[in-house]
């Protein structure tokens, strides 16, 4: 479908980190020079991967909303499994976020990770392979393998470099995910049996009977709702974040949660249009509960990471609402909100990491008055706070507002209730900022902390730039999304039309 794919660029981006990981395995991890080599291998591999992934972006044709850079090899011909990869204007950005954040995570953990360094770098690189693999896969089995495979390095990261209650957190994470995974697998099997192939490009065009769609939809929902996470299956997230090391939290928030949203779009919306239409009210209800409920919970948190984790759940509420609004603004908003949240929440966890590295506590009350001795840090934190609050001209605004528009057009109740998130979201973030940075600087150990040093600035600079780029000139990112979303929306309309003729489509928000 695209001539630029004269070499298998997606596979290269997927597996290059694994090659780096193998190289790192060959190094001696117990000597200082060996450790230094491992760090540099990790950094160079991830930077090279990022550089190559930029070629996907530059080669991508934004006016064509279909899959590009498609690679296709027979995998298990007898079973009709194919090794098939490709990106559209939606998955493109998730690939880039994954490849951007991996080097940032390696740099940010340069000094803070000292035990089992080799395993650390290997885990991060393998994680990158899994993430990129998941977002570029266009075969059911391939998707499933990567979808589940991501969890392995993530468990390792939480389990080895995590905090005090890491076992409980990892276990909770596992338990939630397990139920979803089993059901998702069953759904995939059912789809395979029905369509006779695991080729997703074929399945995307395969109509499933409405009744079957219902079951399939619920099975996928069980998996994606946990990943997202949606209320009420979100309680693993705060624990996982709190126990994970900084880099783990960054990847978890920035990329892993997005697999849920991506799944909703690719599987639920695109493959199961009638069921998506049918279940949209359920999603809206859960989204609104998530926005209000978790925002209120975030308001009373005393642990920085927990607060940001809960805020993630609320922000993902906007995403699910936007996606299932099933119109141009809503879907675009949902995707954009995921990209923005990937950058902003990742950055916020990095911000927490900055002070955690210095004071080794996440207790909000232990800090205060840091605007005095850490002005650069205060500025950076302010930028991400505002982006999280969704101030116009930051990345957070575009996605949040478009999602709200989408929801509002669908049903004004949805728009009105969800927009309370504008107030609540500002409340918990500003209260957090006030407790950390304002007030009197009276704690001796807080006073002794130094401002951002150069490596931390290197980590934050690209993220700050992206927040404003996405906020002021989002067209760069939104043009590819728009064409793909337009395709999805028109295909969706076409496929639900026979039904829509009998029952008029929801006309809330339309002028009569």
């Amino acid at each position, binding site marked *: 479908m695209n001539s630029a794919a004269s070499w298998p660029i997606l596979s290269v981006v997927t597996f290059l980190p694994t090659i780096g990981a193998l190289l790192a395995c060959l190094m001696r991890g117990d000597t200082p020079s060996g450790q230094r080599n491992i760090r540099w291998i990790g950094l160079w591999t991830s930077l090279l991967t990022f550089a190559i992934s930029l070629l996907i972006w530059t080669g991508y044709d934004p006016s064509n909303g279909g899959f590009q850079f498609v690679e296709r090899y027979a995998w*298990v011909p*007898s*079973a009709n499994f194919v090794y098939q990869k490709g990106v559209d204007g939606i998955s493109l950005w998730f690939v880039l976020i994954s490849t951007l954040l991996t080097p940032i995570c390696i740099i940010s953990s340069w000094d803070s990770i000292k035990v089992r360094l080799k395993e650390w770098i290997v885990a991060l690189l393998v994680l990158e392979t899994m993430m990129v693999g998941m977002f570029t896969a266009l075969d059911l089995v391939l998707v*499933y*393998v990567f979808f*589940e495979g991501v969890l*392995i390095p993530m*468990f*390792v990261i939480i*389990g080895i470099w995590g905090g005090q209650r890491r*076992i409980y957190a990892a*276990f*909770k994470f596992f*338990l*939630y995910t397990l139920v979803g995974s089993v059901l998702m*697998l069953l759904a995939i*099997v059912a789809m395979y049996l029905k369509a006779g192939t695991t080729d997703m490009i074929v399945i995307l065009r395969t109509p499933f009977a409405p009744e079957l769609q219902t079951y399939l939809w619920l099975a996928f929902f069980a998996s994606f709702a946990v990943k997202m996470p949606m209320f009420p299956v979100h*309680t*693993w997230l*705060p624990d996982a974040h709190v126990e994970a090391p900084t880099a783990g939290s960054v990847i978890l928030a920035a990329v892993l949660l997005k697999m849920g949203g991506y799944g909703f779009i690719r599987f639920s919306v695109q493959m199961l249009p009638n069921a998506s239409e049918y279940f949209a009210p359920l999603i809206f209800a859960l989204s609104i509960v998530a926005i209000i*409920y*978790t925002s*209120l*919970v975030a*308001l*009373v948190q005393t642990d920085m990471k927990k607060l940001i984790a809960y805020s993630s759940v609320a922000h993902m509420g906007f995403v699910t609402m936007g996606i299932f609004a099933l119109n*141009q*603004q809503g879907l675009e*908003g949902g995707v954009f909100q995921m990209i923005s949240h990937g950058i902003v929440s990742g950055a916020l966890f990095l911000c927490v990491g900055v002070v955690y590295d210095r004071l080794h506590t996440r207790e909000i009350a232990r800090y205060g008055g840091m*605007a005095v001795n850490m002005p650069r840090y205060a500025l950076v934190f302010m930028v991400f706070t*505002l982006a999280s609050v969704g*101030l*116009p*001209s930051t990345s957070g605004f*575009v996605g949040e*507002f*478009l999602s709200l*528009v989408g929801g*509002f*057009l669908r049903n004004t*109740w949805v*728009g*009105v209730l969800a*927009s309370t998130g*504008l*107030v609540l979201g*500002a*409340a918990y973030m*500003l209260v957090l900022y*006030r407790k950390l*940075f*304002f*007030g*009197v600087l009276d704690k001796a150990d807080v006073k002794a902390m130094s401002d951002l040093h150069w490596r931390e600035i290197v980590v934050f600079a690209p993220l700050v730039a992206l927040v404003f780029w996405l906020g*002021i000139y*989002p067209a760069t990112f*939104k043009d590819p999304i*728009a064409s793909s979303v337009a395709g999805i929306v028109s295909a969706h309309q076409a496929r639900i039309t026979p039904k829509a003729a009998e029952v008029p489509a929801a006309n809330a928000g339309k*002028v*009569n």
Partner: protein
Amino acid sequence: MLEAICILLPLLAAAIAGLGNRRLGDRGAQFVTCGALILSAIIGVYLFADVALGHHPRTVKLFSWIASGDFRADWALRFDTLTAVMVVVVTVVSACVHVYSVGYMSHDHSKPRFMAYLSLFTFMMLALVTADNFLQLFFGWEGVGLASYLLIGFWFHKASANDAAIKAFLVNRVGDMGFALGIMAVFAIFGSIEFNTVFDAAASKNAAMFNFLGYQVPALTTACLLLFIGAMGKSAQLGLHTWLPDAMEGPTPVSALIHAATMVTAGVFMLCRCSPLFSQAPDALAVVCVVGSLTAFVAATIGLTQWDIKRVIAYSTMSQLGYMFFAIGVGAYAAAIFHLMTHAFFKALLFLGAGSVIHAIDGEQDMRNMGGLRKAIPKTHMLMWIGSLALAGIGIPGIYGFAGFYSKDAILEASWAAGGIGQTAFWLGIAAALFTAFYSWRLIYLTFFGKFRGDHHVLEHAHESPPVMLIPLYVLAAGALFAGLGAYNWFVGHDRAAFWGTSIVTPPGRDPIEAAHHVPEWVSLAPLAVGIVGILLASWFYLKRTDLPKKVAAAFSGIYVLVFRKYYFDELYDAVFVRPALWLGRVFWKRGDEGLIDTYGPDAIASNSQRFAGFVSRFQTGYLYQYAFVMLIGVVLFTTWFLWRGH
């Protein structure tokens, strides 16, 4: 090109002063920001002359911002008469405040940060008034809210300043929620959020219905009311006003620029900008009229009782904003903008004058600790008289009047002429005018007359402000003296049709300003009469019979306490919103997440299942690889099963 320079200079200055502070130093930051603002003001005046007087409205499109289907918004600079008036007001007052701040903040340690915030605010305000679509308007709207938040909390070591800053942001966000929903409603109705498209189609939609929250409601009225909620938040109208008095925690130049002259008038501007919509929605206008007139009255009563010099002026601001809103409510948009313009000058003058008083006596703000200052700071004293005379609307009919004389009269005459609900507004406005004169002279007498009631050491050091603070005051005083007389014909007089062009649309078949010119003589004279009565009453209370205020307060203690405690809005909101929100948060967290979901979800499975318990204990040996391995094996097994099924 000139348009872009005018708007972007303050942003550039803010960036330089804010980010380059070490190398630049205090002087450098002050020089850059003040220089940029003065230049911006000069360009602003030139553009006003070209656009409004030379009748050359235009729009400069910069680049696309958000485009999603028909939901399209550009970064653009729209200059028509309405915008040009706002640009002049904003840049001139802002330039005055910038220069004044050099003196006022001379003892502060964070001068570059302060100047950067001020310039950032100015940029946001300019972006707001030059928007050519609802979304850029919203950008400026939220941007000025951010700048206001940063500046209210400028002295961030003070807990009260932080509280006030967060309160201001959140109360404003409640309004913004309404604004955002209003934008969505406009998009749902018109399929566009660009002003030109929407306004051109407004008349054709005046009977359209709209399904909102399950009810069929008139489309335009609904959209207008939602937008009005936003205006209420930003312009501190009754109900969403509680943040404004607290905002006085910020440095006084901030109060003058943001919380008197410019940002709080954004709501007035927004409604005038949307006049083509509101003029098609008479019911929405009626609501605006009621809310505005109640605000004018209620705020004026509170102003009578406050002791903090800045809070008196803050309530006065709220009251005057009420006037502007009920002017809009009767369709007299031009009169509202006229009052906005004159008010910006004399209220900024009053605030900066109050700042000069505070500066003279070491930061004291309580008028109970002032008195007799007219000898120590004569120039400030004189300037406060000019500001107060303009606020009270004093003048000699037919010959000369201070700025407020013309604009307040125009509003009251228009509302009387509108009849019905407008006449109620007229009487509330007359009562508020009486109170306005009274509290203004109460302030002057308590501050400048009688004996000094504070520490005598403070009085010994009391000094007149330096020229860098006084010169901006003279500029503003010139506005308070002549802006009304000079601009009368353009705004509401003979030349008004040519002046406004198409930037303001009055309700069909009605010209409230024309009607205002034909009211009975007594209606025109009533505001002046009650103003003089108010001044005389205040003189009686605070010069002759200084025992009277206490006696009156005691005689009507119930009403007095109710008014003094600001009608208990803060207490009410705290009990209804703030505390329940925190309580709910805790309940959801402890009872919901941990009590219900975890107990009956993952934890229950864990404790009930031997198998999983085994897993847990194996985890606790610390060997997660094992688990990962099991997981991988699972995947492999599943894949194998697939293969087998395939055959």
